[in-house]
């Protein structure tokens, strides 16, 4: 286990999940794999914290869940972005950009 991997800042897991789901509906394990892949192993996503996050997003109505057959014909719970979730993803992305730019520029100044 490499120590170079960094933990996720508070609240960003939701944003990442929404981003992953914006491409196509996925089940839990696939989302976790996908996160590992795109972050090329830099991010350390606690697999255990993925599910509470998914349920939280579902309760808020940003994603919806449906049981469907997966590639090897097993029933899996697929999560899909809702219209509200798409809007949320956009606004959260925008505010994350602003935040990271601002913090970046402050750090550059110093």
């Amino acid at each position, binding site marked *: 286990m490499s120590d170079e991997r960094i933990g996720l800042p508070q609240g960003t897991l939701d944003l990442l999940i929404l981003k992953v789901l914006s491409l196509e509906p996925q*089940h839990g394990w696939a989302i976790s794999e996908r996160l590992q892949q795109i972050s090329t192993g830099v991010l350390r996503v606690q*697999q255990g914290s993925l*599910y509470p996050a998914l349920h939280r997003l579902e309760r808020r*109505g940003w994603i919806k869940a449906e049981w469907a057959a997966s590639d090897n014909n097993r029933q899996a*719970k697929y999560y899909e972005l809702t219209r509200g979730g798409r809007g949320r993803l956009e606004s959260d992305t925008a505010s994350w950009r602003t935040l990271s730019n601002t913090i970046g520029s402050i750090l550059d100044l110093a």
Partner: protein
Amino acid sequence: MLSDLKFRLRAIFRRAEMERDLAAELELHREREVAKLTARGLTPGQAQRQARLALGGAEQVKEAARDTWGVRAIESMMRDLRHAFRVLRKHPAVTASGIVILSISTGASTAVFTVLDSTVFKPLPVANAERLVRLTVVPDATGGGRRYPPYAAFERLRGLTHGLEQLAAESRPTMPAAAAAQRAAPAGPPGVRAMCATGNFFDVLGVHARVGRTLQPFDESPGAYHDVAVGTYTFWRDRFQLEPTAIGSTVLVRSRPFTLVGFLPDGFKGIRKGAAFDVYVPTAAMTDACLGTWGGSSTVEAIGLLARDTSQPAASAELAQLWNVLKESGDYSPGTISGQLAISNASRGIAAVNDNQETSLYLLAWAVALIVLLGCLNASCLLAVQGVARRNEIALRRALGATASAVLRQTMLESCLLTAAGGAGGLALAMLGGQAILAWLGQGVRPVELAVDARVLGFSLAVVLISGLVSGVIPALDALRTRHLQIHRDEQLRPFRSGKVLIGVEVALSLTLLAGAVMFLRGVGNLRSVPLGFDARDVAVITLWPNFDNLLANSDQEGYVTSEASRLRDRLLHVPGFEQATVGTGRTFTGGLRGETVRRAGVTSDESVAIDAVQRVDDRYFDVLQIPLVAGRGFSTRDDDGSERVVILSHSLAKRLFGQANPLGQSVSVGATTASVVGVAGDIQSRSVKVPPASMIYLPLWQRLAGRGWVDQTNVQVRTRQSPAQVSAAIEGEISAGHSALQPSPFADPTTLEAMIGASYADDTLRLNAMSLLASIALVLVVVGLYGVMAYAVARRVREIGLRMAIGATPKRIAILVVKECATVVGIGILAGIPGAVVVMRAIASYTFEVSPIDPATLGGAIVGMLLAAGVAVARPIWRSTHVDPVEALRAH
């Protein structure tokens, strides 16, 4: 928002499904992870382990997921509720008695509220309710009850006032018009029950017709009133099945046809709560039946609509001024416009009970509130006793990490559950209780409908909640004081203090109720011992009514009635069992013409003296009633229209008119009649035993009172041991023999003088009965509570008592020990209750007859009663304490 709610609802109601989904989801994840790792070349065992590490503990993940479902609070609440259910089920005796006690207290309070709400409180369902006021005449020092302004003055005021936008009136017509006419031919139009209203009445209220139109001002334009009627919703529904074509139909009021022009909306039943009627007719169309009378002139019950820019006090001041203007105008005889015109808020309509009954209801409400509090305390006691038994359990829960708020919530939930069960039982009792209260209030209450509506439900819910919290407080505090250190300590070392405190408070509260009951007892005793001035024992009173069918043929109707009446009297003297009989226009108690004035002949009307009643009586009246003649003579059959007009004054009236001078032979004017005084009779109580003796004027039955119509009712009073019904039957037998001018009155049942006197202070008797009943309930609650607590206290000390006995204490010493304990509780309770009792006694002194508010005997009586009840309660625990077997006690513990 919606998705959130849906999600949470699913988490509550489809919990198993959610759990299954979660488990399946995590299982799939683990499988995939294992498959991935195996594909990378790990052995199945390593892959399993690695996957589990990556995912974390399955239960922790599940818990974290459940936390996001947002139903934690509800879940723990449900858990607490289940726990509370189990606890209550585990102690069925405690639970059952708690529920019974709380059912009684919730039921009683809801019953009183329901009755008060439906007879007094509920606002009128009309648009202008807030601006409605009611006009009444408050008499000045001359006495008499509240009454209504004269119709003529009402008409004048209508034109003069600015503070009131409009003046309108609703009045209940006299009996024959109020009752559905039975004489209507079966095929003809239906006879209906009428209510009178002025043309602007519905405008003033802001009520619009459901169909057709309401009464309008043009319906009562002078000389051109219309015979129209507006039906109530229920009448429309029951008689015409809500057919709009019913408009135009004819109905009969007092055999007179009225045309239906509209129907009122559902729910509007007039401004009199509980009034039963079918149609409104214009007051102007039937003034003789719609208007009341006072002192020979018509009166009307008026309501007004406050102008938007004025306040009630301002309008009141303006009307008082206008009233004085009318008084001084000289257009009205002094008897008709007197006193003060007052306005009062009428937004709730006119109560279905009279002022006295309303007061009784308020007293009842206070007493019942005390009962509710006692019920709570008793339930609290039960829970506290049970709580002590559960100290170990609570200590264990605290030790295992239950927070103070969790324990508090738990005990509060138990008490609330108990009160909720009690409340449900109480609601069932409430409607029965409400009917009982209405029956208890007795005559004169209009038949209101009692129903469980939102207001009643809200009230009982509030009672349940408050009871739950109140009865939960002490047990909760007890539970909080439990520390886990005590888990292994001897339970008996801690005294059971809270139970005794509760019982002390109960004793104090019941003492106040008991003191109230004793006050009413003494008040009624005082009423019964007022000297009446006549002998009321064994006097049956039968009221007769003119028989119009036989009268109309006669030219001198009044002469016919009086001669018939005296002939009837003579015949009655021969009826076996009738000792004596007398006839007259009024009953000795409550009877006679009212509103008259009298003055010495020759003086101006300014010196008129108001009198309570004018009675026209026959020659035997004073003998039969045993009213002593203080001076002069009684009447004889020769005092008829053909001879000199004579009058007998009551003693106090003679004093008022003539002072020390001899009244005999003097002349007095009663209204337009002048007569000479031939006798002075002893003072009697009339209408009420609570007021000074009445100023009475007696005229001979056979001499008419000029200007005062004719005799409408005749009363026969018979001294006999027979029942009023028997007497009435005998009289009916006598009068049906011929074409009599008399018939039994359809409006007054045969009765006795004593019953009438009792009825005059029925309110006091009712209050006494209600207070006695409630005080008895309170005493029973105290006895039950005291017994429970003391029995428990003794049971807890069995070991100690056994030990004391083993080392030589006699049963007597043990008994003294326990008696001391009881005496402390009861004694402190009584001492604490005395100030409360004194406050209650002062508060109700004005409702009792001549009872001193600071009467040591009353308080003493209440204390003795309380001590007796306490004695009953503690007898058994004390007996038990002296019969402890030391060997058994020490072995068992």
